[in-house]
């Protein structure tokens, strides 16, 4: 059966639909109403105000700024919030266990595989970008879109403006 082979199945779209997968997965958990994902047919757009070589970049993650072992009791974690924390020095690790990523296929032990701080520093050194914001940022992966729109996103904007950020790189896990 072709589905058992470790190759893409030509009878299906090549990339995974996480909307389809998560809908079926949580239905199997007994959640009757499927999640209704953000759906828009238009997007805002802002052009660069200045060259990249003069721009300050802000890096945003969905990981948590906690140095905890992977097997920590998730029930003991603090309530999440939007944050900005100093990047000097960069964190040794970020906590990712509460996020839905593929814990069987891969791992997040290498920070730069999802939080490319050292790769960005290299690009600053060669002058590709002007600078990195002195702080990095995080926002919760919030079930409530209203809370993201009314609370987390405006807080994030305010934090980045405080730091004079020109461009933003957002890396969800």
């Amino acid at each position, binding site marked *: 059966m072709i589905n058992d082979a470790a190759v893409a199945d030509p009878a299906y779209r090549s990339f995974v639909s996480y909307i389809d997968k998560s809908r079926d997965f949580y239905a199997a958990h007994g959640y009757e109403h499927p999640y209704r994902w*953000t759906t828009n047919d*238009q997007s805002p757009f802002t052009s660069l105000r200045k060259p990249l070589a003069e721009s300050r970049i802000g890096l945003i993650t969905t990981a948590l700024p906690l140095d905890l072992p992977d097997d920590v009791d998730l029930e003991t974690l603090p309530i*999440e919030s939007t944050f900005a924390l100093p990047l000097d020095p960069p964190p040794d690790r970020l906590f990712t266990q509460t996020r839905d990523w593929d814990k069987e296929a891969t791992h997040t032990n290498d920070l730069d*595989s999802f939080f490319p701080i050292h*790769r960005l520093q290299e690009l600053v050194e060669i002058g590709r970008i002007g600078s990195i914001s002195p702080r990095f940022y995080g926002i919760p992966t919030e079930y409530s879109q209203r809370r993201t729109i009314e609370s987390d*996103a405006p807080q994030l904007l305010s934090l980045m403006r405080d730091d004079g950020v020109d461009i933003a*790189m*957002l890396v*969800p896990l």
Partner: protein
Amino acid sequence: MSLAARHLESNGIPTVICGSARDIVEQASVPRFLFTDFPLGNPMGKPYDKGMQQEITGMALDLFEISRFPRTTVQTPFTWGDDQWRRDYMRVDNSNREELRRAGELRKMQQARRKAEGRIRSQ
């Protein structure tokens, strides 16, 4: 993340999202999206593959310069190596249906307890 990108962009900060959940990001409509077709968890490149991470980070920056309009998706050229993860992640079939049902019950109990104890985000 998509909603945050849209908010920043609307307020004058150009954004790029680097991710692996293509349908979710594209359905939300974002200004710039760099897609890497990997299992969720390493959207900036395979762990400890510095060369790949440099390429992907560089492509994300390039996107600021080459995009002329919103909803621009660029796909990186990298492949994971095998495709087993596409089938296995969040798999639901007869072998695990009962296990998932029980996990759901446990999860609902935990959610109810967190709510009762006030350990959820407030309005």
